[in-house]
């Protein structure tokens, strides 16, 4: 981790890791210092014990050479002691405190003999690098010549100070041991820290993976691509958040799709309308121009035909504008939500079509299962009127002509239908029939707006409309109202 990172760039994971690593380091340091202290105490006490024993031993060894004042013997005796690694010097003094032997190069540290010189006790001075241990050497002398009075009591024995032994015990070993300890503890804590970080990293990955996933998905949504449903591993807080996120993402996608669809419909609508309104204008201007030319030339025979083109273009335009106003009224007049008796309403419509039904010899069957429905009665009337009118218009010439209006009852959404056994619709045109000003046959009357209006009304009632049809066998228009989406 660098120390120049911007605050915002630190991820949750890295923050936790950073904190834990710092904590780990602190604990390691405290642990190391503590271990060092304990170890130091142990090593010190061990060294002191060793110093005590060694010094007392040296005193014993030095006793005889000191008595005999044999320097060579003394040197020989202590050479063995010199093999003890902790010992940095061994010195002997005689009873007059004069240095006899110094087994070390250079000068011994200063040492006063003021205290304890006549008591059998260790005097330890601590220096930076060593313990300086001083110990008096005594010799036991019998009061009388030994062997004469065998039963002589012990306490008549007299101790005589014959010199001092002084040994320096180096602390180097302790320092070395401590250096070693620092290195080992540091390595161990480093190892544990790394393992800890690794485990923590794995744990954090498990924890933050769903969050990272959510973050990426949210970013994708912002850019307009919708992710598939994110997997939910556990039913915990993050799992719940993920589920909620999935629902949110779905509903945004749904809404966007709907808006796109509406937008496309609107685009298509304005495209078609502008195209269809332009056409008659060209017709009118074109034939005016031709008529003008013909009048100049004096040829009059085609004029009535040309005038007819102009008249019908004007009429057509009038019709288109009228239908456009109908469509816009449909959007902007108030929607009255009321309970409608469907059967009654359709029977009323039937009376409007009484004449054409009779002329074309068509029977109209209204299912008795049609009951009440909630909706805008004027608009729904328009739906049935348009569908029945279409069925009559495209009935064809077959002998038994039938229009059926009914309902398919379902648990979720009832389906209403208007079915005829007329000429039917070629499958490749079926998707186009709901477009505005769309006429499959330009010889039929009407502006091609009826089904556009029907579709719009059904949509206002939160329903869908679709057609199933086979050429020569008839068409069925199905629609739903107040559709409940089961998702």
């Amino acid at each position: 981790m660098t120390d120049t990172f911007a605050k915002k760039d630190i991820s949750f994971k890295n923050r936790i890791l950073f904190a834990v690593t710092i904590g780990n380091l602190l604990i390691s340091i405290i642990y190391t210092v503590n271990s060092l202290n304990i170890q130091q105490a142990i090593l010190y006490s061990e060294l002191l014990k060793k110093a005590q024993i060694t010094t007392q031993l040296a005193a014993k060894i030095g006793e005889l050479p000191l008595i005999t004042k044999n320097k060579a013997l003394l040197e020989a005796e202590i050479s063995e002691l010199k093999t003890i690694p902790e010992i940095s010097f061994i010195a002997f003094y005689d009873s007059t405190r004069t240095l006899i032997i110094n087994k070390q190069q250079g000068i011994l540290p200063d040492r006063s003999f003021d205290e304890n010189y006549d008591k059998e006790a260790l005097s330890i001075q601590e220096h930076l690098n060593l313990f300086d241990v001083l110990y008096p050497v005594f010799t036991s002398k019998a009061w009388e010549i030994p062997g004469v009075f065998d039963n002589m009591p012990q306490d008549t024995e007299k101790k005589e100070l014959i010199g001092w032994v002084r040994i320096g015990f180096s602390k180097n070993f302790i320092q070395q041991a401590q250096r070693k300890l620092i290195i080992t503890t540091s390595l161990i804590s480093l190892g544990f820290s790394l393992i800890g970080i690794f485990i923590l990293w794995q744990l954090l990955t498990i924890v933050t993976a769903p969050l990272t996933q959510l973050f990426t998905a949210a970013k994708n949504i912002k850019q307009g691509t919708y992710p598939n449903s994110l997997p939910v591993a556990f039913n915990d807080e993050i799992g719940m958040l993920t589920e909620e996120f999935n629902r949110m993402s779905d509903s945004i996608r749904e809404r966007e799709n709907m808006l796109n669809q509406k937008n496309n419909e609107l685009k298509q609508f304005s495209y078609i309308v502008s195209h269809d309104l332009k056409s008659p204008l060209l017709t009118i201007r074109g034939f005016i121009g031709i008529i003008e030319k013909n009048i100049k030339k004096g040829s009059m025979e085609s004029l009535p035909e040309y005038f007819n083109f102009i008249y019908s273009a004007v009429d057509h335009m009038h019709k288109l504008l009228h239908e456009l106003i109908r469509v816009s009224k449909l959007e902007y007049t108030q929607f009255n939500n009321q309970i409608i008796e469907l059967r009654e309403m359709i029977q009323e419509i039937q009376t409007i079509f009484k004449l054409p039904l009779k002329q074309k010899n068509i029977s109209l069957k209204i299912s008795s299962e049609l009951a009440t429905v909630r909706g805008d009665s004027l608009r729904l009337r328009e739906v049935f009127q348009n569908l029945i009118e279409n069925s009559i218009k495209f009935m064809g010439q077959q002998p038994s002509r039938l229009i059926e209006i009914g309902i398919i009852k379902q648990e979720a959404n009832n389906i209403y239908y208007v079915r005829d056994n007329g000429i039917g619709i070629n499958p490749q045109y079926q998707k186009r029939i709901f477009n505005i000003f769309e006429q499959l046959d330009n010889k039929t009357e009407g502006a091609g707006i009826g089904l556009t209006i029907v579709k719009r009304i059904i949509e206002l009632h939160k329903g869908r409309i679709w057609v199933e049809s086979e050429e020569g066998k008839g068409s069925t228009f199905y629609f739903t109202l107040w559709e409940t989406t089961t998702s």
Partner: protein
Amino acid sequence: MGTFFKKSEPINILLIEDNPAHAELIKIVLHENSVKNAITHLADGETAMDYLFKRGNYSDNKNLQQPHLILLDLRLPKIDGLDLLKEIKNSADLKHIPVIILTTSDEEADIAKAYDNHVNSYLVKPLEFEKFSALMTRFGFYWLDSNVFPSKK
């Protein structure tokens, strides 16, 4: 105004246009300039498809000559102009025939789609008659007089 009938063989034009008034206008303006060119007028996409692919009502008519040139409107009943264009340009027998879109639509999407489907030219019908007449005259000079068509297979 000049005429286009320099060529010995008359040029057959197939006009696919659902608006009878527009079809009449086109015919009048083209005939003003050239009497020799035969114009066949069809009013919807399906009939045009039958005619071109010799199907349906045209299946028996083996002598039916392929047009030299197709003038095509975009918004047609039954089969849309763009779909018809696609069919023509996907057909090994028909793709050599120049197709010229003649429509009131100046929508970018329409123009792009038409060229994507290898249209040979795209003309927008002007609303003023003078401009329309001038456009058709230029069209005549170029396509019927200057342009060289492939020989029929």
